[in-house]
């Protein structure tokens, strides 16, 4: 390999037996399998089904390069990092690595909850591959970085989760390898701390460290990495400048089902009073690009009223990925004549947070009795936007992400000084 290439992968592949990762075997299974094999000697025995988590991945990294790896869940990102970190072995191909590798696949690996912060710094440092002398030398730096001075001799089980993560990241951030492999560790701590972590990674690359970085966070990939690899179903889908790859990746986002139509009518949810016909989410502005947190949306509920004289209301519930109800809204449509109707709910821009928003609808009678109810009828992917973020790269905290008005003025009556805007 040429002098400044530090990682050279050719044809890397990893095959897993299906189920192998999920369950260990018991002796009984093995004996049972061996017995059946004996009884069926002569018959061709079937190989257990396998799946290639990674297939024919080849790329090179030069010294000082910062490479981002993106892709959906199960695309093989973590498998690749595990192979390069020597945790698991490739099934095919090979990789050459020149230099010390420090990998950070999880924050706080090996922390023991009964031990104090001080003790865990030493333990975790040793696990990550630091020498004792090196930990001693950088001890004060680590403590200062984690901002936990007064809790140094408290068992970490008494730490808040924020403190725990800060300490864990602080140790890792002071690991000083030539090649740094990082998996999704930015979602740590508060904004200020996160900025420090990103700064640390930036610093590493400026000091000639080679950084391999996996993230779901496109903002971070775009701003930290010069180039990126897009993995899809275990293979490299595309590689190139980070900005291009991230944009192509985002555009490719297979949209979840943004509309659902029931046809023919009589299989549609509902009863002899009212039936749903179609539910759809669309953008409510003229744009054609990605739906972001800024995009206004419209949810259309098409339904047929089959019986007159009912006091109807259409209800809508929006849930996020964690299943938290973001909001619910309803409209009283009153006593409609039999016929086909469409009620549209407008969701303004700058309200939803990024993520997949799924929408359930129901139609109720007399404010109480649900005639139709469809859980997760449609869903829409809302992408992030840099608007109003400052230097925050991670998922914006909170269920919603409104842009609110702030005012700042000198407080003449207060005793404390307040800076004017």
């Amino acid at each position, binding site marked *: *390999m040429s002098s400044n290439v530090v990682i050279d992968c050719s044809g890397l592949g990893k095959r*897993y037996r299906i189920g*192998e*990762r999920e369950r*260990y*075997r*018991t*002796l*009984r299974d*093995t004996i049972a399998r061996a017995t059946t094999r004996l009884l069926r000697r002569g018959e061709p025995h079937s190989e257990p089904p396998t799946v290639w988590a990674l297939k024919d991945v080849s790329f090179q990294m030069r010294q000082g390069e910062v490479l981002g790896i993106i892709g959906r869940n199960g695309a093989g990102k973590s498998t690749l990092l*595990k*192979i*390069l*970190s*020597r*945790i*698991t*072995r*490739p*099934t*095919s*191909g*090979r*990789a*050459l*690595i*020149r*230099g*010390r*590798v*420090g*990998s950070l*696949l*999880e924050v706080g*690996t*090996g922390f*023991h909850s*009964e*031990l104090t912060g001080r*003790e865990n710094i*030493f*333990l975790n440092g*040793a*696990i*990550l*591959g*630091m*020498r*004792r*002398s*090196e930990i001693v030398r950088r001890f004060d730096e680590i403590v200062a970085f984690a901002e936990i001075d007064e809790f140094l001799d408290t068992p970490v089980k008494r730490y808040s989760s924020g403190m725990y993560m800060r300490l864990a990241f602080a140790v890792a951030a002071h*690991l*000083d*390898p*030539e090649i740094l492999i990082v998996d999704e560790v930015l979602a740590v701590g508060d904004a200020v701390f996160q900025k420090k972590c990103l700064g640390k990674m930036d610093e590493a690359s400026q000091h000639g460290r080679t950084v391999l970085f996996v993230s779901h966070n496109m903002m971070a990939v775009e701003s930290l990495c010069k180039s990126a690899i897009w993995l899809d179903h275990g293979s490299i889908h595309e590689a190139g400048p980070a900005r291009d790859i991230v944009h192509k990746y985002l555009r490719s986002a297979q949209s979840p089902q943004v509309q659902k139509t029931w046809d023919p009518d009589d299989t549609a949810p509902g009863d002899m009073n009212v039936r749903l016909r179609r539910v759809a989410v669309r953008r409510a502005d003229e744009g054609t690009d990605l739906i972001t947190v800024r995009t206004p949306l419209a949810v259309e509920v098409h339904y047929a009223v089959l019986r007159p004289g009912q006091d109807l209301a259409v209800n809508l519930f929006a849930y996020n990925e964690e299943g938290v109800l973001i909001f619910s809204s309803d409209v009283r449509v009153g006593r409609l004549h039999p016929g086909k109707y469409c009620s549209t709910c407008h969701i303004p821009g700058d309200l939803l947070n990024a993520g997949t928003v799924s929408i359930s609808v129901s139609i109720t009678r007399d404010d109480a009795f649900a005639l139709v109810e469809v859980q997760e009828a449609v869903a829409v992917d809302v992408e992030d936007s840099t608007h109003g973020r400052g230097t925050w790269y991670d998922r914006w905290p909170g269920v919603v992400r409104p842009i609110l008005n702030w005012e700042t003025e000198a407080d003449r009556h207060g005793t404390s000084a307040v800076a004017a805007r």
Partner: protein
Amino acid sequence: MSETIFGAEAAEVIELSPLAPGTLGFGEIWRYRELLFFLIWRDIRVKYKQTALGVLWAILQPTALMAVFSLFLGRYAHVPSPGAPYPVMVLAGLLPWQLFAQALADSSNSVVASERLITKVYFPRMIVPAAAVGAAVPDFCIGFVVLLVMMRYFGMPFTIQILAAPLFVGLALLAAFGVGLWLSALNVQYRDVRHAIGFLTQAWMFVTPIVYPVSVIPHQWRHFYALNPMVGVIEGFRRSMLGGPLPEKFIIVSVLATFMILLGGLYYFRRMEHTFADVI
């Protein structure tokens, strides 16, 4: 920077490929010796945290067992104890046995218990069972002081032969490590091991001269008996402490048996360790 263990030799090229390395990897284990030290230290630190009796357990366990055996086997069942009072004979057998049993059980469970580490960080896997063996030593040292006190109480002489005792302690640790390598690697594949360990150590205890002297075993069986490495360990340790000629033949057979188990364990563990992260 050259201080990190990823290699003082910065230009070292690591090759990752499907093939197994041909060596036992001792060089690498040596480079990670500080991690071994830290893992032992962690296990010792954590062992008696949040226990009311703390380190007293290390005294209580062997002495309570000694009392029970002395009463029921020594006094009521009249098990012979040539050359020493029964309680001292039993304690001198129990201490290395408990060291072995503890080290064996902990190391056999160690790899599975370190799942998080093994799936997230690279280091020579053999360090995990080795650390579990090392962490069993402090309890033994405490028990050893109790033994010295007991010998004093029964007016037994301290001879120069005591200096040989650490050799047998070392042999017990090697035997535990050898069996621990086998069982910890098997445990990753087959969780049956977890259930077998308690049963195994219990049965093993009775084929080892702890509560009875070796003299109860018929002559023609004794060499076969010594294939159990703990026979050489217990007899050797006991004679070093309590006096009497060292049973060389037992010791030779037991040392050979220990090394067979250990070499097999090293080989098997090395062959299996690259699958740990995928299977565990």
